[in-house]
Structure formats: structure tokens, C-alpha cells
């Protein structure tokens, strides 16, 4: 027997989620007892099962649609309960501040008058929705579902990279990955005090009931999806099933007398709460993009009239903007009078001349991100970029500096990952999911995304990323 799975594993100087974590010892020892062939065999059958279950996202090439599974790595990422407690309290603090910020900017705007955040950054932001001014939301909760992207640097410090406060996705993979691990590795899980994640759907529907319009009685909740051709359709199905609510498309809904109805076999039926997986822009052609076919004409009328709850609320995109992100530590201090529990990655806001100069001077060592993009698009990673790519980036920065921020290149932590029959270090991040109704609850663990290409720092599924199950253990 050629001893341990990890004998030839070398984290190459990065912080290793497995080797440097005391909490992972038991699991590490149990994994070491497996041969690489046994591990590969279990991984292969897990992947077949994911495909058969249709736990896929959809990619488009030529005229064909192809269902792909999110590549799944069977070696779990492990967090101790102390690490988790730190992350959890940091996320709750952050979401509390974000909801206070949103309520403020759509009402009194005191944070702008007090000069903490530049008004033009908020009011000039294309995700700021003037239509939301003066609307009072139950519990002042704007962000019901949040997915906070967290990375770990070479010292093992957790840093927030991004607040996804619009329609974050990925929670279905968290739960399905866990189901897969429970089936494929019952021997690893025994007696380690693994925190369960089964109750996400129940937590979500309770939170949605909490924000239902007053007088809705037993509120009717639906999940609004762009439809079966959306890349995240599987997740929409998953969430609708877990909550036990209808999965609807825009064409199933209509608005009459400022009330929302869905078309059923028995005629029209009232809808009180919509968990929408459609961006603001496409939600209501009367209020936003007039040519949107995905949305429902009149939805915003019903919303403004207080006859409908939307989760997340309209206009939350301003809070997860990459430029606003830079102010988040100050926003937390302003509203909560607390120090941030989770730190930001150091961020240079290129709209500020000094930050732009610094960015241009240090381009080769910085990561430059456009502020409006999601999914890892448009990012230039300085240390990995060619001369041509750096020149292009410089030109874009000079042409439109306020569209960019820059950050130092974080040496992301790694986790042992099964690649081509070997266990190798790969960079990971973490996206915990938080659900907020009258208060905030965080699903233990979250989605660990892993950059499967050697040396790559980009973990997005659209860019060749995979995922791991995340275990919070006692």
C-alpha cells in the first residue's frame, strides 16, 4: 500500500485548508486510509449521479444547449466551529449594515449628508432605483438572501471579497454536494459533529412569510424564474421544491388592480410574496426595460401599493456594487458603531485620482475589476497578465476610471483537490448563504468554489471552477 493520500501533496507555501486546520485532523486521517484509486472511483460514481439527477447548469455552444454538472471535488473543505462562529457573526453584522444602508438611501439619506459615502456613488449608480424612495419594507429588510464571497489569505485571515445582495446563486450545490457526500463517504462523516444543512428551504420560506404584506393571512409564496433555459434553472427548481412553492415564469403572472395573480387550472389565484431570480431590469417592463419578456407588467405598481413582497427587494444592487464595497467598513462603523468583524480586501477606488495613480503605477501586481460585472468577467489579474493584457487594462482604466477598482493580489488559500489522479493544491473561496426575514440566519458552511486549473485564482463556474462540500465540524 503506497501509504497516505497526502504524502506527495505540497501546498506550495499557500495557506492550506486541510493541513493547517486542527479541525480537519480526523477527516484527514480517514482520507489517508483510502487509496487514490478508491477515491477516484467514488468521485466518478458521484459525478455520474450528479449528471443523472440533472444537477446541472446550462451552457450554450453553437445552437445547442448542453447540460453540464458543476465539477465536484470529493475532498471536503473543513471549518472549525470557532472559524465558523467568526464568519457567521461577521456576515450577520455585514448584512445588518447593508439593510440599514439600503433603508437609509431610499429614505433619509443621512449617510450621504454626513459625508460617509459620496452621494454620487449611490445616487449616480445605475443600480440605484429612485422608484424605491419612500417605500417602507417589513422589518426594513431589503436583502433577504445574501451570498458573501470570502477568501483567505496566506496568513489564514478571512477577508470579504464581495457582497452578493441581488440574486446570489449556488445554494443548491451546497445541499446537493452534501447529499452526494453522505452517500459516497459515510465512513468519513462518522462522529465528527458535522453541522447539518438540511433546513435551508424551511428557513427561507419562514423568512419570506415574515416579510409578507400585512393582511396576507397565510401568504402565497412563489419563485419567479426566467425559465428552463436559464443557466441556474436547476437551482430554481431546487429552491421551489425545498420550499414547496410553485415555480412560475413571468407569463404565469398578471397584475390586476395593483394585485398579483397567477394563472391556474381554476382561474386566477392571489400571490403575496415573490422570490424572484430575475434582475431588477427585467422585472417589470412598465417600470424598467420596456422590452423585457421575462417580467410581469405592473409588478412595481403592486409592490408600491404594499400588496406584494419581493425578495430580494428592488434596488439592492447598489449595496453590492464593487465601489460601494470599498466603503463597507465605514458603513458598518456608521450604522452599528462597531468595528467590522470580517475585514475587506484592501481596495483602491479608481474614481479617486490618487487610487487611480496607484493602480496604474502598480498594475502588474494588482487585480483590476470592473465595478458592474458579475461572474468573474472583465477581471485583469496583474501577475498573470501578458504585456498586451496590461496595456489593454491601462487603456480601459484611463478611458473610464470610475468603472474600476483594484485590489492587491491575495494569495488565496488552497485545499487538496483530486486532479487527474493526483491530490494537488487548488485555490478556493467560500460563499456562505444568509437568509434574513425579521433576523438573519446563516447556513453553516456554504459553497466552497475551487479553481480547478493549476495556479488559477478564478473560481466562477462560468470560468472553469468547481465546488467542494464545506463541513463545519465541532
Amino acid at each position, binding site marked *: 500500500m503506497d501509504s497516505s493520500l497526502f504524502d506527495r501533496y505540497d501546498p506550495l507555501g499557500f495557506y492550506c485548508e486541510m493541513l493547517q486546520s486542527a479541525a480537519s485532523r480526523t477527516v484527514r486521517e480517514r482520507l489517508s486510509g483510502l487509496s487514490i484509486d478508491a477515491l477516484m472511483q467514488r468521485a466518478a460514481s458521484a459525478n455520474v449521479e450528479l449528471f*443523472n*439527477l*440533472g444537477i446541472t447548469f446550462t451552457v450554450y455552444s453553437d445552437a445547442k444547449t448542453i447540460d453540464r454538472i458543476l465539477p465536484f471535488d470529493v475532498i471536503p473543505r473543513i471549518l472549525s466551529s470557532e472559524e465558523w462562529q467568526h464568519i457567521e457573526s461577521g456576515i450577520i453584522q455585514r448584512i445588518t449594515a447593508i439593510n440599514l444602508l439600503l433603508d437609509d438611501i431610499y429614505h433619509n439619506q443621512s449617510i450621504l449628508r454626513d459625508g460617509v459615502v459620496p452621494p454620487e456613488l449611490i445616487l449616480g449608480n445605475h443600480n440605484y432605483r429612485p422608484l424605491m424612495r419612500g417605500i417602507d419594507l417589513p422589518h426594513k429588510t431589503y436583502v433577504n438572501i445574501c451570498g458573501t464571497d470570502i477568501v483567505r489569505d496566506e496568513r489564514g485571515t478571512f477577508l470579504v471579497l464581495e457582497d452578493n445582495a441581488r440574486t446570489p446563486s449556488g445554494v443548491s450545490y451546497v445541499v446537493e454536494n452534501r447529499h452526494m457526500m453522505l452517500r459516497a463517504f459515510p465512513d468519513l462523516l462518522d462522529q465528527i459533529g458535522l453541522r447539518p444543512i438540511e433546513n435551508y428551504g424551511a428557513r427561507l420560506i419562514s423568512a419570506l412569510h415574515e416579510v409578507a404584506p400585512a393582511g396576507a393571512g*397565510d401568504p*402565497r409564496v412563489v419563485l419567479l424564474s426566467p425559465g*428552463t433555459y436559464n443557466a441556474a*434553472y436547476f437551482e430554481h*427548481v431546487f429552491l*421551489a*421544491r425545498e420550499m414547496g412553492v*410553485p*415555480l*412560475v*415564469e413571468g*407569463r*404565469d403572472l398578471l397584475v390586476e388592480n395593483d394585485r398579483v395573480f*397567477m*394563472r*391556474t*387550472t*381554476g*382561474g386566477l*389565484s392571489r400571490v403575496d410574496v415573490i422570490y424572484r431570480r430575475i434582475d431588477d431590469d427585467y422585472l417589470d417592463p412598465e417600470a424598467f426595460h420596456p422590452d423585457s419578456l421575462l417580467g410581469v407588467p405592473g409588478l412595481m405598481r403592486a409592490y408600491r401599493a404594499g400588496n406584494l413582497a419581493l425578495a430580494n427587494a428592488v434596488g439592492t444592487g447598489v449595496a453590492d456594487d464593487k465601489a460601494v464595497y470599498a466603503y463597507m467598513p465605514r458603513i458598518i462603523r456608521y450604522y452599528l458603531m462597531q468595528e467590522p468583524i470580517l475585514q475587506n480586501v484592501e481596495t483602491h477606488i479608481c474614481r479617486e485620482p490618487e487610487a487611480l495613480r496607484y493602480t496604474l503605477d502598480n498594475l502588474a501586481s494588482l487585480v483590476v475589476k470592473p465595478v458592474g460585472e458579475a461572474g468573474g468577467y472583465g477581471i485583469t489579474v496583474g501577475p498573470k497578465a501578458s504585456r498586451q493584457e496590461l496595456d489593454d487594462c491601462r487603456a480601459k482604466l484611463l478611458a473610464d476610471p470610475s468603472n474600476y477598482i483594484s485590489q492587491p493580489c491575495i494569495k488565496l488559500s488552497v485545499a487538496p483537490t483530486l486532479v487527474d489522479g493526483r491530490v494537488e493544491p487548488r485555490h478556493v473561496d467560500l460563499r456562505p448563504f444568509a437568509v434574513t426575514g425579521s433576523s438573519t440566519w446563516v447556513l453553516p458552511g456554504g459553497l466552497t468554489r475551487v479553481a480547478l486549473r493549476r495556479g488559477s485564482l478564478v473560481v466562477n463556474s462560468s470560468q472553469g471552477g468547481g465546488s467542494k462540500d464545506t463541513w463545519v465540524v465541532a
Partner: protein
Amino acid sequence: MPDVLLARYADCIFWLARYVERAENLARILDVNETFSRDSRGGQNWRSILQLNSDEERFLATHRSATAQSVVNFYVIDSENPTSIVSAIRFARENARTLRPLISTEMWVQLNVFYNRLAGLGEGELSPGNLASLFASIKEACQTHTGITEGTFFRDQGWYFYEIGRYIERADQTTRLLDIKYHLLLPSPSDVGSPVDVSQWNALLRSAAGYHAFRRLHGGSTTPQRVTGFLLLNRAFPRSVHHCVREVGRLLSEVKSRHSLRGGNDAAEELDRLEVLLGTLDISAVLRSGLHEFLDSIQRQLIAITRELSTAFFGYTPEAHQAQTANSQ
């Protein structure tokens, strides 16, 4: 909270059931044709299958002649052909994908795996020696679907629309089978009663899974009239038109009363009339006045019932029905 079903879901579940039933019937017909319907010279008539589905013109536009291989390819693996088995299961799977919040995970997984298997079939796997087992496995996969559905699908409104779709499709398929075969099997008066003729009628019964039941009922006496009467009117035979129509009527009235649905009265009346007609039919009179015309009128009534269900429950406006018929081809 009132029990509700999205109109669009009702439409999808109705067609999901129809497509799987359609695929099963097609597999039956191809299987029987391959195995049992050799004529006196040992040749097989593959053209009749093209006539059955009104596909002859479309087929001949892309194929030189109707050989066993070309017809089987056309109906099993040709994804460009909307009446192929792989297309039917693709449509079924697409509906199932839309319906995933409603149907059981087992139903979805089985259809997903079934479709992926069919989509991966190559011509090599359709060689003469493989066909019988291939058709058997397709039939079995369709029946597995039906069984999983029976055993796992929650009995709310969706179940009723599923069952209604399944029985309407089955009734329609039986009329089509009978229509083509009847005319094909009576080429000349002198053939009637000859041994070949009997084997052809037996093949027809086999393709509808009615051979043994027919034997139990009629012993050795196989006549065109008895076979036609059996397939059309027998109350106990699960694929007879009469049985299917009666089931649709029962399911419709049950779903309307249990779930307080007000629509669908036109369809219910149409079904009543059809059931009374089938219950009082004299088969020899039908054969005298023209079986084809009779079967044609039943098919038209089934289409009318589908249209009425679509406007009453599936959210179609009467004008949109044209488009639906095109989509669901």
C-alpha cells in the same frame, strides 16, 4: 391555502404523459413489424408504418426508399424527425424539466437517463440482431416511467391531467393502428382467412398487447370483425378506445369535483357522447359503412376534447390552439 395548479404545468404534465405513451406505442408497432409481420414471401412492409403516422411524404423527401433500416433509423434515432421515439422522449424530458418542482425526483431521473441513452444510440446499435432487445428496452423504459409515476406522483390535480393525457393518447394510438392495419390487411378478398392473414391480425393484436386477452375471449377464431371490435370496444382491455374514453371521462369529472374546477364542461359532454356511442356500437355496421371514416371521426373528437381542455385548464386562448397543435406534434 387552496390547492392550485399552474395552468402551464397542467399543460406540460398532460403532454409529458402523451409523449411517453406515444413513444411506447411506436416501439410496439416497430417491434411487431420487425418480428411478426412478414408476408407470404417473407418480406416486410415498412411503408405502412410511415402511413400510420402520415409521415410518408416527409420520409421520402430525405430517403430513397422505405427499407427496414431506413424506417427504423427514422423512427428511433432521427432527432430531426419530430415523430421519432428520441424526439418524443426529448419532448417528454423537456416537459419533465419544466415540471421538476411538481414531479418526483425518481420520475425526472428516469426520464433524464432514458433520454440520454436514446440520444446516444448510433446506427450500429440498430442492426437487425439488436432490434428486438432494443424495442423491448424502450417499451420497458416507458413502462418503468408509468410505474414510477404511479408509485411516486402525488395525487393532486397534476396526477389527473397526467392520466387524462395518457388515456387520450392511447385511444388515439389505437385508432391509428387499427386504421392503417385494417386497410393494409385486406388487400384482396381472396386473402381473407388465409394463414398469412391470420398471422397479420395476430401481429396487430400483439402490437397492442392484446393477443392473449383476445385468445382468452375468442379462442381460435380470429376474424377482422372480432379483432376490430376487441381493439375498439372491449371494456376490459386497457388499450381499447372505449376503455380509454371512459377513463378520461371519469378522471375529468373527478378532478372537477375534487378540486372545484369550473371549466371543462364542453369536454365532459363530448366525452359522454363518445362513450355512449362506443357503448352502443354495432361493429359490423361500422365495418359496412367504412371503418376509416369512423376512426377518423373519433380522432377528430379526441382533438376537439384536447382543444377544450387546453382552453378550459391550460391557459390557451382559442386562437392559440393552432400554435399548440404545431408545438406538440
